[in-house]
């Protein structure tokens, strides 16, 4: 259990550095460190599917983020900070944080999952009857593609739409060649 604390402290410190530094490239690298720490946490929390997915997605996300910052010159923000607005925002966030800590008292302590307290939960059915109902040895794959296939269909649609939007926004070839002033 000590390794969880060490990894979470590492992620929190990397997040603070990512937020406060003025250099955009440095903060992108710190986001990469957070993702890597998260992948190690997933591996130690007995979720190997998620660890594989998180590490490769984080690498591609880093490439996308660096593409936005690597050759732009005017990336430093100069100008006065609004002091009053920042203090109000930090105060509200602190209130939300303290109120959220209270909610965690109602969860079972770390180490006992929720379905151990409620035996009629669907997770118990998924574990016991997963191999017999779907035939898949990987229970998580059986859940996302057989028991909950609708969620995967919706996720595929969301990915399709977002990549379609990204490629359409970045298209420059089909502009009209003659100059018309924007009004």
């Amino acid at each position: 259990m000590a390794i969880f604390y060490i990894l979470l402290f590492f992620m929190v410190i990397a997040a603070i550095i990512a937020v406060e530094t003025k250099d955009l490239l440095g903060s992108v690298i710190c986001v990469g460190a957070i993702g890597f720490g998260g992948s190690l946490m997933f591996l130690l929390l007995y979720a190997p599917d998620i660890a594989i997915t998180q590490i490769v997605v984080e690498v591609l996300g880093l490439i996308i983020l660096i593409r936005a910052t690597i050759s732009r010159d005017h990336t430093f923000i100069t100008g006065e900070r609004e002091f009053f607005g920042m203090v109000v925002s930090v105060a509200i966030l602190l209130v939300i944080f303290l109120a959220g800590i209270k909610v965690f008292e109602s969860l079972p302590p770390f180490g006992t999952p929720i379905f151990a307290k409620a035996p009629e939960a669907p997770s118990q059915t998924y574990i016991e009857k997963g191999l017999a109902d779907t035939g898949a040895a990987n229970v998580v794959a059986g859940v996302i593609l057989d028991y909950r296939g609708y969620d995967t269909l919706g996720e595929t649609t969301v990915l399709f739409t977002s990549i379609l939007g990204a490629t359409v926004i970045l298209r420059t070839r089909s502009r009209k060649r003659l100059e018309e002033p924007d009004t």
Partner: protein
Amino acid sequence: MKGMTIIVKTICGWVKVLIFLFGINIILFGHLTPGGGFAGGVILASSYVLMMLAFGREFVEKNLPIPLASRLDCFGAFLFAAVAILGLVFGGTFFVNFLYQKYLPGHALHLVSAGTIPLSNIAIGLKVGASLFLAIFALSAFRKDFQRPDAGGDNKRPVAGQE
């Protein structure tokens, strides 16, 4: 994106095949080992991103042209929807695992088991891989080759770089 030095090109030429094979392994055995369609598709896309970083963008465009990648993407989505509708035709319910329950049970813990789950994994892997390759290709191919109309005299023109 320009290419890199000769050492990087040689190593990447050998490594990309390993990454591609690893991606296919994770997709195909998604119902037996950890992984599945999503992780395998992202690994397939990242092997092509490695080629783009090492060899330059034009080389990859000759290797996998953009219309072909777009058609692979749409074919993956269509295959996933077809598996769902065939469940309605053969099984009576939308998206039911009709191969496992009626026609081809297979043995547990073997490659041919779990019905339509490997087919869905292959469809998702194709779709996610082609989509992410297209997105990163579009990000690297973005260049300003149109003239912006100059609105106002003091609007500074940015020196944003592109390759």
